[in-house]
C-alpha cells in the first residue's frame, strides 16, 4: 500500500524534476523563449495574433510529460490536421484574399513588376543557405522567408523541411513585424535626396467593378497555367478576393476574413509552437535560419529599391525609387514605410497609393515566386 502511495506521489512534480536536470535544459531555455514570444506579442504588439499562440504552444510543448505533442495529443492533432497537409495556411489565404483591396494595383498594373523585384531576396538567400551547408530543400524553405509572407513560408516549409517549420515561421513573422525598422536605413543608403523627393501624380479612379471582379479569375488562370504547383496558394487567395469583389456572398467573405481566419490562426500558431520543442529547436541551424531570414528581407529591399532606381532613370525621373521597397509582401507595413520615408524629405509628397499598388503587387509577387519555385522543383523531380 505504502509503495503504491509513494509511486503515486512520484508522478507529481515529475515535470519539474525533469526540467531541472541536465536533459531538461533545452526545454527550460525554450520555456524562456516562449515567454519572450508572449512578451513580444502582448507587451510589444509584434504580430500578436500569431506570436501569442506560437509562444503559448512553445510553452506547452516544453513542459515535460505533458503529452500534448504525442500521438493523439492536442498539439500533434492540430499539426496533423492542418500543417502537415498544408490546409491551415491555405485557409488563411482565403481570408487574406477576402481582406485585400487590389484597386491600387489595378489602377497601375505595371506595379506588379515591383512585386517581382521584391522577391529577389528569396533566390539570393537560397544560394547563401546552400553555402552554409543546408540541404537543397532546407535552403528552399529558409529562402522563402524572403517572401515576407507567413502562410507562404509555412506552406513551402511544411512540404520540404517540416523540421525547420518552427524557426522559419517565427523568423518570417518576426521580421515582417520589423519591416518598419529594417527597411528605412537600406532605403536611405541606396537613394539620393533628389530621388527620395520625386513626386508622383495622383492616381485617378480608372478601374470598373467588372474588371475588379474578373481580376482574381485572370490571375488564377494565368498564374495557375504557368506555375501549376503553386495553384493552391494562388487559387485560395484569389478565391477570397473573388468572393469580396462579387459582393453576393458577403456571409462567406466575412466568415473567411473573420471567423475562419481567426480559428485557423489560433490552430496554426499552436501547431507551429509545437514544433519548438527544446531538443529539436535549439540547434546552430536555428540561429543560421534567423540570420538568413534577416538577410532575405534586406536583400528583398535592396533589390526593390535598385529596381526602383532603374525605373526612375528609365522614365526620366517620374517614379520615386522608394516605391521599390514596397514590392515586398509585408502588407500594408511596407507601403506605410514608403509613405513615411517619402514625407520625411518632402512633407507634401504623397506616395501611399503608389506604394500600396506595389505592396499588393508584392503580395501577388510572393505567391507567384513561391509558385514558380515549387513548379521548378517539381520539374527537377523534387516536388
Amino acid at each position, binding site marked *: 500500500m505504502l509503495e503504491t502511495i509513494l509511486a503515486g506521489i512520484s508522478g507529481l512534480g515529475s515535470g519539474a524534476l525533469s526540467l531541472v536536470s541536465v536533459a531538461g535544459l533545452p526545454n527550460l531555455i525554450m520555456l524562456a523563449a516562449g515567454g519572450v514570444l508572449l512578451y513580444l506579442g502582448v507587451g510589444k504588439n509584434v504580430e500578436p495574433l500569431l506570436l501569442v499562440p506560437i509562444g503559448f504552444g512553445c510553452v506547452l510543448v516544453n513542459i515535460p510529460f505533458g503529452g500534448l505533442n504525442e500521438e493523439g495529443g492536442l498539439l500533434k492533432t492540430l499539426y496533423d490536421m492542418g500543417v502537415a497537409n498544408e490546409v491551415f495556411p491555405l485557409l488563411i489565404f482565403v481570408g487574406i484574399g477576402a481582406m485585400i483591396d487590389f484597386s491600387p494595383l*489595378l489602377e497601375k*498594373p*505595371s*506595379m*506588379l*513588376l515591383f*512585386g*517581382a*523585384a521584391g*522577391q*529577389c531576396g*528569396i*533566390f*539570393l538567400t*537560397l*544560394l547563401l543557405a*546552400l553555402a552554409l551547408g543546408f540541404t*537543397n530543400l532546407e*535552403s*528552399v524553405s529558409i529562402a522563402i522567408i524572403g517572401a515576407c509572407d507567413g502562410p507562404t513560408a509555412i506552406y513551402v516549409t511544411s512540404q520540404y523541411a517540416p523540421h525547420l517549420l518552427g524557426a522559419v515561421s517565427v523568423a518570417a513573422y518576426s521580421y515582417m513585424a520589423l519591416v518598419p525598422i529594417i527597411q528605412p536605413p537600406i532605403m536611405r543608403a541606396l537613394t539620393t535626396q533628389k530621388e527620395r523627393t520625386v513626386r508622383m501624380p495622383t492616381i485617378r*479612379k*480608372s*478601374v*470598373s*467593378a*467588372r*474588371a475588379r471582379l*474578373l*481580376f482574381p479569375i*485572370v*490571375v488564377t488562370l*494565368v*498564374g495557375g497555367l*504557368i*506555375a501549376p504547383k503553386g495553384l493552391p496558394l494562388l487559387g485560395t487567395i484569389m478565391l477570397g478576393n473573388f468572393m469580396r469583389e462579387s459582393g453576393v456572398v458577403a456571409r462567406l467573405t466575412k466568415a473567411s476574413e473573420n471567423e475562419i481566419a481567426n480559428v485557423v490562426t489560433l490552430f496554426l500558431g499552436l501547431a507551429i509552437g509545437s514544433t519548438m520543442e527544446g531538443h529539436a529547436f535549439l540547434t546552430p541551424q536555428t540561429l543560421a535560419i534567423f540570420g538568413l531570414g534577416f538577410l532575405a528581407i534586406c536583400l528583398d529591399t535592396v533589390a526593390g529599391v535598385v529596381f526602383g532606381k532603374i525605373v526612375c532613370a528609365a522614365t526620366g525621373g517620374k517614379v520615386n525609387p522608394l516605391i521599390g521597397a514596397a514590392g515586398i509582401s509585408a502588407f500594408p507595413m511596407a507601403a506605410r514605410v514608403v509613405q513615411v520615408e517619402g514625407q520625411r524629405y518632402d512633407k507634401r509628397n504623397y506616395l501611399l497609393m503608389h506604394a500600396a499598388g506595389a505592396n499588393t*503587387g508584392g503580395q*501577388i*509577387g510572393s505567391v*507567384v*515566386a513561391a*509558385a*514558380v*519555385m515549387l*513548379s*521548378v*522543383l517539381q520539374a*527537377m523531380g523534387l516536388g
Partner: protein
Amino acid sequence: MDKWSFGLTLLVVGISGTFITLWLLGLVTELLKKAFPLEPEEKK
C-alpha cells in the same frame, strides 16, 4: 545534380519566371481594364 547547379538554376529560372509571370499578369490586367472600362455611373 550538385548544390550549385541546383541553386543557380533556381536563381535564374526563379527570378526570370517570377518577372515574366508578373509582367504577363500586368499585361492581361491592362487588357482587362480596356475591355471593361469604367462606366459613366461608376465615374460619378
